[in-house]
């Protein structure tokens, strides 16, 4: 207690410049050596400044009140107050206010109507949503729980669903690790309904990425050359982006823009995008206008609509690099020419859609 009081009075003297030169040097040394002392000095300074500011304004207000007392406000008011002809103006003002009010009511009726339309749809999606508290508490991973079994080939229904996309033409796919983690078996389904069993080839828990490979012994016809390439640079705020994913049995397009170059809590490995994603979108590719892959959709912020996060494409490249080159043929890379350039949006999406797969996970 005694020491605390001493310390504070020294800090006060220091801030007020009342220490001798030698004392001040010694004290500065103490500040450097002891962060807790330094912290106290900073807080105390901030506090004293606030107090000083407070007393200045208090003083100024008192002086102004004094000055105000010298003014004959009533006489001035009579002279300067609204003129009778202002009633006409007032009426005119009200007329426009009524017009504003009327258009506002019209607008709200329309928007309430459209909100009702919207909530019907999202309500259904939310029913099948499920949270896996894996990466961060306030981020919800976008795994979809599949309730129905509408594929006759499976005896058991799939428990979880996600999205993945082709990394190579010979059977490597990328998705989020949280989609496939802890799975007994994983099946990918293309947009024609063909199913292929896959296994996890590589996983990266740091960036929540997993590379899947067609299981040995499964006949996989292979894909044509990948239409997209990875793009790492030159992506900025406001760039239009879209994603394809399987929040339900059909692939669904989501469109938006890059809203921040960092993800949840300033995570620089991610982008924040304004796309409204739903459970099942996890692992979907994040594409730019030209059809380049710039990231992987991985999570959305809970209770905040339209704030989703995508792992940057740089980390896709990193996980690809961990796979031996000779087992990859015609892989997606940063360098290859983009064959989609020049096509219109619909044609691009049709092409890319063949390379985006639904992932069914059995646990």
């Amino acid at each position, binding site marked *: 207690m005694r020491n605390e009081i001493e310390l504070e009075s020294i800090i006060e003297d220091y801030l007020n410049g009342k220490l001798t030169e030698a004392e001040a040097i010694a004290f500065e040394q103490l500040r450097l050596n002891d962060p807790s002392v330094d912290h106290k000095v900073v807080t105390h300074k901030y506090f004293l400044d606030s*107090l000083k500011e407070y007393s200045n*304004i208090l003083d100024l207000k008192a002086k*102004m009140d004094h000055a105000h007392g010298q003014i004959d406000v*009533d006489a001035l008011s009579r002279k*300067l107050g609204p003129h009778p002809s202002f009633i006409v103006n007032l009426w005119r003002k009200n007329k*426009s206010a009524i017009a504003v009010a009327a258009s506002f009511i019209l607008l709200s009726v329309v928007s309430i109507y459209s909100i009702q339309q919207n909530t019907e749809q999202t309500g259904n999606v939310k029913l099948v949503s499920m949270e896996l508290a894996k990466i961060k508490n306030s981020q919800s991973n976008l795994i979809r729980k599949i309730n129905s079994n509408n594929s006759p080939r499976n005896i058991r229904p799939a428990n979880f669903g996600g999205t993945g996309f082709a990394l190579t033409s010979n059977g490597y796919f990328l998705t989020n690790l949280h989609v496939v983690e802890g799975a007994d078996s994983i099946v990918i389904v293309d947009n024609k309904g063909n199913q292929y069993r896959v296994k996890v080839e590589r996983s990266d828990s740091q960036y929540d990425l997993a590379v899947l490979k067609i299981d040995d012994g499964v006949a996989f016809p292979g894909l044509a050359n990948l239409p997209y390439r990875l793009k790492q640079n030159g992506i900025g705020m406001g760039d239009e982006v879209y994603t394809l994913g399987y929040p339900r049995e059909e692939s669904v397009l989501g469109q938006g823009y890059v809203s921040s170059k960092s993800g949840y809590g300033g995570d620089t490995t991610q982008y924040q995008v304004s796309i409204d994603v739903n459970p099942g979108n996890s692992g979907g590719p994040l594409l730019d206008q030209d059809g380049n892959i710039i990231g992987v959709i991985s999570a959305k912020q809970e209770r905040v609509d339209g704030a989703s996060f995508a792992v940057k494409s740089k980390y896709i490249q990193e996980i690809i690099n961990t796979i031996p080159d000779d087992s990859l043929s015609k892989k997606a890379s940063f360098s290859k020419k983009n064959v989609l350039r020049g096509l219109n949006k619909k044609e691009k999406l049709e092409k890319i859609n063949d390379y985006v797969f639904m992932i069914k996970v059995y646990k």
Partner: protein
Amino acid sequence: MSNKLSSSVPTDREVVLGILNNSEDALNKLYAGYFPMILQFILNNNGDEDDAKDVYQEGIIVLYNKIKGGDFELSSKLKTYIYSVCRRIWLKKLAQQSKKTNNISDFEDIVSTEIDLEEHEEKDRQFEKMQAAILHLGEPCKTIIQDFYINNLSMHDISEKFGYTNTDNAKTQKYKCLQRLKKLFFQS
């Protein structure tokens, strides 16, 4: 509006120098000089005399802080600046009371004051925080703190005023009071 304001107004240089020198006379002249302008504006835009006083005093505080801050450049006439600041403050208050803010009757030119007002709002929050903290502090702490930090009384004066047997006791008391005030201030 045909009512031209005729009260005597100090020159802009007088005001700035006066404020920098803490001259009370300059403040009085400034206050009396531009109050009618703001009163006229508020009265004709859904306000009363008290609103005019509050808004005007807030506007003068903004001007004070700007001049005292040292970065004051007379890019516009002082009159225009004060008018613009007060206008902005009043429009904001009207919006907060959800009164209509279209069709504002203007009497002067306007310059942009957004940055100054953002700074002012931050300072105002600090002011209110401190005011609330001091209010909750209670006696005798409130008076001790005000005497020491605001009225600049010495520890010796304070111990005499409050009848402490020696300055050390007064110091201990002041320390405890300050700790409590800090706690109130930083927690709010």
